[in-house]
């Protein structure tokens, strides 16, 4: 697809990606103001991830990963968390969940809610594994997983609903002419 892109398609792709990165970064900044009740370093609700739900429906895997990394890095800059342990956990989780959500979405077997829930569950799991192996160097932090799963599922369902409404209202026009 990339090699055959016309100039208009390239412009469209860049615009869509930039817009989603911008929305995702601002959501990342805003959601970091919402208190997160678990003692996880850099713990966040994950509302910024709804842009990924929009992306997996129409963007290529490469662009989805660009978006995942882009919004986390820009959001990290805005919140001053770039490079902190919480940021490293977050970006690992987001890349893993973007990959999974893209695959689930392309399988055409799952709805928005399923893709979102699975993405959140995998994101939390990868975050805690990264924390257990690289940061606190102890498996005990994995005891937090059920609590993160519960909170993550709440925001995942909210994200799925937002993404579903956005696509229902504007159709596929953000990806295709």
């Amino acid at each position, binding site marked *: 697809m990339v090699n055959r892109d016309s100039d208009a398609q390239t412009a469209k792709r860049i615009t869509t990606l930039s817009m989603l990165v911008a929305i995702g970064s601002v959501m990342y900044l805003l959601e970091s103001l919402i208190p997160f009740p678990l*003692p996880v370093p850099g713990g966040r609700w994950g509302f910024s991830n709804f842009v990924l739900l929009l992306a997996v429906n129409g963007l290529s895997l490469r662009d989805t990963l660009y978006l995942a990394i882009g919004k986390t890095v820009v959001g990290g800059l805005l919140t001053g968390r770039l490079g902190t342990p919480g940021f490293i956990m977050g970006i690992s989780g987001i890349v893993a969940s973007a990959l999974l959500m893209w695959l689930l979405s392309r399988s055409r077997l799952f709805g928005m809610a399923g893709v979102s829930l699975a993405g959140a*569950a995998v994101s939390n799991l990868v975050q805690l594994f990264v924390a257990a192996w690289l940061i606190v160097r102890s498996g005990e*932090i994995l005891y*937090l*997983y059920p609590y993160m799963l519960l909170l993550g599922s709440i925001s995942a369902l909210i994200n799925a609903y937002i993404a579903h409404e956005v696509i229902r209202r504007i159709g596929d026009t953000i990806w295709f002419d």
Partner: protein
Amino acid sequence: MRFLGKLDWLIIVILILTSIILFIPRRQSATIAEIYHDGRLVMTVDLRVDSQFNLEGMKIAVSGGRISVVDSDCPDRICVNQGAIDRPGMPIVCVPNRILIKIPAGYTQLDAITQ
């Protein structure tokens, strides 16, 4: 893309089962005991490792996650008679030796990480 797809119930069931399995309460046993002498923390003992040591004329033992004073040179030996403790609550106190052994409340394995 629909809000709920054909196989979404599968993901939901997996997540619910995972939560139920992980939420099954496990006994959160205490992992450390603190020993104070004259009100100052002099020692933190890992309850997960069996050990035995002497302190201020007392012989203190850790066995199976419980800590006890097995022998003491004090006259009344209340600390020895109290037996072993394995949870927050009643500390072992030896007044003649000015020793207090307690298991801090709320200090679970999880807290050991997050602190």
